[in-house]
């Protein structure tokens, strides 16, 4: 075989940004400038030769040059990526998976709900929507994390907060306690109580959420049961261990669904139809 789908392209790191003590943003560019087209919500297999590869969502808007990924240092591959500097190369295969139905969102009120590093998969879409703000009736964000040091992209979130055409709610887990976080300007609450207090009406609204599986499940439960949303109004992106990205390796299956091919973006009516193990 001369070329195959498993042979990666090499992509060069142009910039590294420390987001939190364990999360770094890597900005990437192809030496030949030939960046593949992608859509908001897709992912790629990024890796370091010698350590392996792992799936990361493409965290920048497609209209922006290059690629961007947010990498949390948790394992062998992510540790190897964290050790790299601008000028080093990563292996890249992709883009893979489906994307958010951006066109269908136009004219509607969008509420983004992100938990921790779960903002990364939504960030490309969020920026795209903000850059075409007039196409949407509302673009709001609830951004929560377990601790302050798990909030990513805070420079950008601060910009969002200054915008008049966007409502931003920040929240940390109540276990942190308001007295434990001096100077915290946001709330200390899980997301469902915030939703149930502010009661964003389901009329013409789409909620796009990503975070730890437990957060996604509780947010959806709250929206469906307490606020009267239809499952089709909720979109999420599932992160499974997508190893091949090609719908072959069997690792990301939930029932007959290959998350890496049919997902990772799903509306919640699809999610509810899965065998409940994710």
């Amino acid at each position: 075989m001369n070329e195959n789908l498993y042979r990666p392209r090499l992509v060069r790191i142009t910039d590294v940004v420390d987001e939190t003590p364990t999360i770094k943003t890597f900005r990437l560019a192809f030496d030949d400038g030939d960046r593949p087209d992608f859509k908001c919500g897709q992912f790629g297999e990024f890796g370091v030769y010698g350590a392996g590869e792992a799936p990361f969502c493409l965290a920048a808007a497609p209209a922006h040059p290059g690629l961007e990924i947010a990498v949390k240092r948790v394992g062998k591959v992510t540790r190897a990526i964290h050790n790299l500097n601008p000028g080093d190369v990563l292996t890249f295969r992709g883009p893979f998976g489906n994307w958010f139905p951006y066109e269908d969102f136009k004219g509607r009120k969008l509420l983004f709900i992100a938990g921790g590093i779960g903002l990364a998969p939504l960030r490309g879409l969020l920026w795209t929507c903000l850059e075409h703000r007039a196409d949407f009736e509302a673009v709001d964000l609830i951004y929560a994390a377990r601790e302050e040091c798990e909030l990513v992209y805070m420079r950008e979130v601060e910009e969002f907060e200054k915008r008049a055409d966007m409502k931003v709610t920040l929240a940390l887990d109540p276990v942190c306690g308001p007295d434990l976080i001096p100077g915290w300007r946001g709330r200390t609450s899980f997301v469902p109580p915030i939703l149930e207090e502010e009661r964003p009406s389901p009329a013409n609204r789409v909620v796009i959420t990503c975070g730890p599986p437990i957060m996604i499940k509780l947010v959806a439960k709250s929206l469906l049961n307490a606020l009267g949303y239809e499952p089709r109004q909720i979109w999420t992106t599932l992160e499974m261990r997508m190893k091949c990205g090609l719908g072959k390796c069997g690792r990301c299956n939930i029932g007959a669904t290959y998350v890496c091919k049919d997902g990772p973006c799903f509306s919640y009516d699809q999610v509810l139809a899965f065998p409940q193990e994710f």
Partner: protein
Amino acid sequence: MNARYYTLRQADLPALFDRARGDYDVIAKRRDANGNLCYGPATSFADVDFTAEQPRLSAKACAFPQIEELTRYRREGRTFTDATPAAPARPALLFGVNMCDAAAFEILDKVFSWDYKDDPYLERRARTTLFALACDALQIDCFCDRLDFPTAAVDLIAYRRGDDYLVEVRTEKGAALAEKYAACFGPAPAAEATGPGATSPPAAKKPPLLEEARPQLSRSFDHEDWALLAGTCVGCGTCTYLCPTCHCFDIQDEGGPAEGRRLRVWDHCTGRTFTQMPAHQPRDRQFQRYRQRLLHKFWYYPERFGPILCTGCGRCITFCPVKINIRELVEYFGGLKATPPGGARRK
């Protein structure tokens, strides 16, 4: 193409083998270091066991080896050079493969060629000719009489006729082989010149077939007996690694930062690490992992691709350290049978 029939005399087998060796990499049944039957490269007909007995591992490695090099890399300063290995040039012949192992390839072709084309698999697959030897009888654990696997992609099938064989040529690939070695193939007896006679295996199918379990299986996910009946699963990879149709894999780098290989290696969904993510384990208990394997074979895969992901070879029962019986469980959870195996049941 329409099937053609020939007689292959036992006495001509060695000659056929030797000639094929000139043109193909021949994989046949032989004995391993412990005297157990295995599929492996054969260089002499004297080493070949041309029997219908079942080798321990299936033949899937011919197209889907346990370890396969995807790329080979070498560091050059701050970047890398890499290359994919050259495909094997010679065609391969699976000489005397069991029907259940041969049929598996057609099932695997589906997943490896839907949407993205899996080049490493498909290139090996394309070069492989399947010459099957039909079984005479079912072994204790096998159950191909209970399911309906596809056989259209099996190139040649030999049916035992006394000391000799009736050979059915079913594909262009098979015809090419039969024409090339025409001297070894005589005309079929008149009674079987257009098809094998009534006594021919494969065995008659016994309903209800396992395919019929799917409607009920697809409602069994939350059945409370999974935890008991699959609770003895130890989580090893025996069933998946021996299975002709299990195809899950991992991609791993081996070597160092300076040079090495990116490999595809078999992996097993029954193992603890298969779906383990840093902060999340979707299938935390062992019975969930076993359930995944079973439902993938008999519900998810047919829903997606048509055929069930099983050819009834029975290896996963014979070699399961705790003798979990997939056929029994499909029947029970699929509503084809009222009582669970072993009498275990939670009320």
